[in-house]
């Protein structure tokens, strides 16, 4: 037990960033060296500067980066389980009503806004500070490595992960020159140091790694600036109507804190037609199949008119602004006449869908132009309920059976009085406030209501006029958004993937070729390779290289003594006059 354990510890100590291979493995990566407790990282000096330096060193260490990454993924979890204001405000409200004890706790912890909360921001800001603190010195180091040359061969090449040797009659100088040519031919950077050639390849790994980490910063900045400068608004448009991109035209509008309303791109469009088709049969009957809004749009204040189609996955892009198709519904066209038969209003009234089959509800409001039979000005209001496909009379409730306009029926109930629009309070256009209105009554003294098919009308009692359901238009609602920085985010993403691929797929490795004349006058060639991580490719590559080198430095006939040795070349030839101390000794010193 003790035997195995002691080797284990020794090995673990060796196993830090190639220190087992001493100077040979130095700088093979720019990963920060992990400080061990005994090197003093754990004992900050008492001065402020000491503390700051200690803190900075901790923050930029790989271990802390690791912990911060872990915290980041942990911190993201609650946001996926608890409703988020930024995702679905309604759900948050519902949650708050259901959980009265949890709500204050969640609010205090900002659990309804995880991704903009103080603590979540703290994690990723620390992570990115750590990242910058990591990238800057690593970049410097990497540039230094690019300027300098690969380090000379370690004393004992036999200790390296891949090794080969043979004896040849070629001159050592000649072997080295050939080896250098060979390595350069394979795009190694190489040079001769002493009795050996030192060469290195795969610098792109490090470059890729730095590009990846820098790209992460670019993406974060692009994303953040996008949030600050973005604008996003919604607009509902009935077929035949239009929209022009000015603030007053929006139904609702949100913008980032640094957004400037002058930056709205000048364009306009008209919704010519909305086409929706639905699955006719099968278990998914009613599932939407196509949604498309056909529009005519103008780019700029006086640009030429163009036709376009907006689909669910295909926004219209005008001048950097994207117009998305978000929802659609029906807008019955109704004509309201007064007692004398004069048309008071004729309009398509958009109603809001309340289920997947587009059963819709809303309100029809006649604000002015209407006079009652006494010639007195008043207002009319109708509660409207609409189904695009009616089940048929006597078939249960008034719910749509299918989303398409197969059997449209509009149900209305009528009121008169004050719509309350002047009360100064913002009014929901889809709801009728009947608090200051009087019901029209039917013969039985009940609220007057009727189901209408297209072309039918509802007569108001006592010559108060009528309302006719003429036909149905469709409406579509659009989200119009502008978010600068998307190009940067995409560029960063592409660079991140490319850098990552370089970082993970390219092997950085060193090859040394030593050629010295042995005591018997025969040249001993030794080749060895060292990579960042153990890889099956390295011995293969070394094999190829040696095979190529053997063509100009052929294997010399065996000498019996050499072939049976198990002690490596050091013992069998006078090259063994080189010191054979363990290579770690000077290297460990160099590490500190």
């Amino acid at each position: 037990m003790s035997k195995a354990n002691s080797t284990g510890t020794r090995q673990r100590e060796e196993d830090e960033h190639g220190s087992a291979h001493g100077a040979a493995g130095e700088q093979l990566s720019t990963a920060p060296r992990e400080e061990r407790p005994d090197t003093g990282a754990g004992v900050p000096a008492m001065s402020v500067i000491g503390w700051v330096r200690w803190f900075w060193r901790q923050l930029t260490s790989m271990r802390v980066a690791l912990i911060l990454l872990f915290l980041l993924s942990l911190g993201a979890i609650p946001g996926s389980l608890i409703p988020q204001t930024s995702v679905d405000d309604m759900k948050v409200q519902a949650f708050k009503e259901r959980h009265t004890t949890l709500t204050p706790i969640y609010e205090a912890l900002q659990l309804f806004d995880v991704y903009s909360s103080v603590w979540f921001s703290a994690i990723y800001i620390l992570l990115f500070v750590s990242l910058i603190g990591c990238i800057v010195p690593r970049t410097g180091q990497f540039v230094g490595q690019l300027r300098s040359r690969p380090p000379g061969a370690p004393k004992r090449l036999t200790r390296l992960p891949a090794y080969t040797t043979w004896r040849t009659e070629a001159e050592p100088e000649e072997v080295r020159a050939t080896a250098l040519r060979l390595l350069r031919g394979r795009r190694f950077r190489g040079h001769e140091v002493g009795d050996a050639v030192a060469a290195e390849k795969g610098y792109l790994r490090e470059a890729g790694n730095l590009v990846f980490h820098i790209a992460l910063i670019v993406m974060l900045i692009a994303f953040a600036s996008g949030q600050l400068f973005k604008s996003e608004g919604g607009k509902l448009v009935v077929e035949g109507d239009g929209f022009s991109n000015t603030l007053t035209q929006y139904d609702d509008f949100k913008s980032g804190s640094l957004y400037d309303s002058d930056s709205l791109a000048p364009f306009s469009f008209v919704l010519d037609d909305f086409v929706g088709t639905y699955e006719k049969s099968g278990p998914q009957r009613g599932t939407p199949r196509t949604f498309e809004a056909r529009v005519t749009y103008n780019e700029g204040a006086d640009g030429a008119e163009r036709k376009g189609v907006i689909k669910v996955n295909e926004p219209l892009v005008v001048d950097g602004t994207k117009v998305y198709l978000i929802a659609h519904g029906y807008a019955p066209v109704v004509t309201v006449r007064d007692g004398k038969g004069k048309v008071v209003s004729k309009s398509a009234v958009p109603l809001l869908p309340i289920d997947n089959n587009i059963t819709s509800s809303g309100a029809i409001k006649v604000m002015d132009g209407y006079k009652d039979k006494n010639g007195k000005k008043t207002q009319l209001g109708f509660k409207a309920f609409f189904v695009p496909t009616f089940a048929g009379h006597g078939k249960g409730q008034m719910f749509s059976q299918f989303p398409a306009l197969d059997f449209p029926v509009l149900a209305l109930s009528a009121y008169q009085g004050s719509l309350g629009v002047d009360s100064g309070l913002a009014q929901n256009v889809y709801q009728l406030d009947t608090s200051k209105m009087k019901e029209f009554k039917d013969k039985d003294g009940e609220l007057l209501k009727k189901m209408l098919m297209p072309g039918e009308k509802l007569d108001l009692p006592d010559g108060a006029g009528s309302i006719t359901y003429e036909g149905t238009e469709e409406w579509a609602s659009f989200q119009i958004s502008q978010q600068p920085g998307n190009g940067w985010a995409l560029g960063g993403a592409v660079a991140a993937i490319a850098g990552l691929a370089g970082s993970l797929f390219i092997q950085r490795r060193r090859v040394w070729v030593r050629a010295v004349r042995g005591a018997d006058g025969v040249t001993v060639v030794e080749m060895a390779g060292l990579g960042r991580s153990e890889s099956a490719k390295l011995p293969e590559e070394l094999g190829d290289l040696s095979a190529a080198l053997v063509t100009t430095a052929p294997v010399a006939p065996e000498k019996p003594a050499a072939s049976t040795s198990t002690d490596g070349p050091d013992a069998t030839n006078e090259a063994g006059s080189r010191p054979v101390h363990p290579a770690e000794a000077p290297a460990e010193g160099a590490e500190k």
Partner: protein
Amino acid sequence: MNLAAATNESLAEASNVLIYSSMAVYTLAFFAHIAEWVFGSRSKVGRTAAALSTSSAKASAAAPAVKAQAGGTAVLERPEVITRSAAGTRDVPDGPGAAGGTFKGDLYGRIAVSLTVVAFLVEAGGVITRALSVQRAPWANMYEFSITFSTVAVGSYLVLLALKKNVRWIGLPLVTTVLLDLGIAVTTLYTDSDQLVPALHSYWLWIHVSTAILCGAVFYLGAVGTILYLFRDSYENKLASGGTPGKFASSVMERLPSAASLDKFAYRINAAVFPLWTFTIIAGAIWAGDAWGRYWGWDPKEVWSFITWVAYAAYLHARATAGWKGRKAAYLALLAFACWLFNYYGVNIFVSGLHSYAGV
């Protein structure tokens, strides 16, 4: 009903038949694998124990001999390359595999692999006919996702086998879990084939979902490697500290590759897939940008993809950090894969979001 719809319906039928048939063949493969392990246990192997008990003497033995084999002919000889494992890893040889070098075990192993190939082809046929019956990519709901996922996982395993990688040890755990996956798919997740809702009509769907499935399938192979690494590592630790593991554990563990090989396998797999996973998330963001008007909205599915990504990044960092490699990094890798799984099953079932598939 028109003619096209009728052919589609019969294709969908055919698909179901093929999926059930593949399950039958996978079951046979499963038994063949069991036979391979059972017959393999008859062999006497003790290489790990031998290697570990002599490990202190090994340091000098690892110094290579001068080996320039002199050939009998005038052909130029190629010097032999000697490899030496890095410090800090035990130099333990890989186990002989499930068959344990026994003839009978190996025969059953080969039968198992052949059956797996057949089952894979039948299952792939099932996935393709399903795709033809709906004339779109077969991954619009969890049923289709599950059958495609297991097909791709088995396909990736077969590709590794074809590349002559030492991966036959994955066979049994893989076939077992594929059977489980298909069982869940046909019983609880089944949905009749149908068209996509418009939000799923996008070529980014092809890209995003196909890479997501591929990543998951390959991450899964990595996770299997990681779990076996943890077992094998405990086994080697026990041996190295002079303990005697149980008979069953010895018999199974002995035949697996060494802990170092399993660890390396898992790392290579995870590292190779990580850039593709990064791409998958970005492709998803682009799709979301087109479909919903924002690239990133912290929808539960997005959140869990992000968590999975960060967890794998943490794993890669752990591998490069002293004191975290080995077992700790392996736990991180498993955690990362658990996140992936939760994203696939958990989020669809427990959390509602925009990514709702038709009929779960």
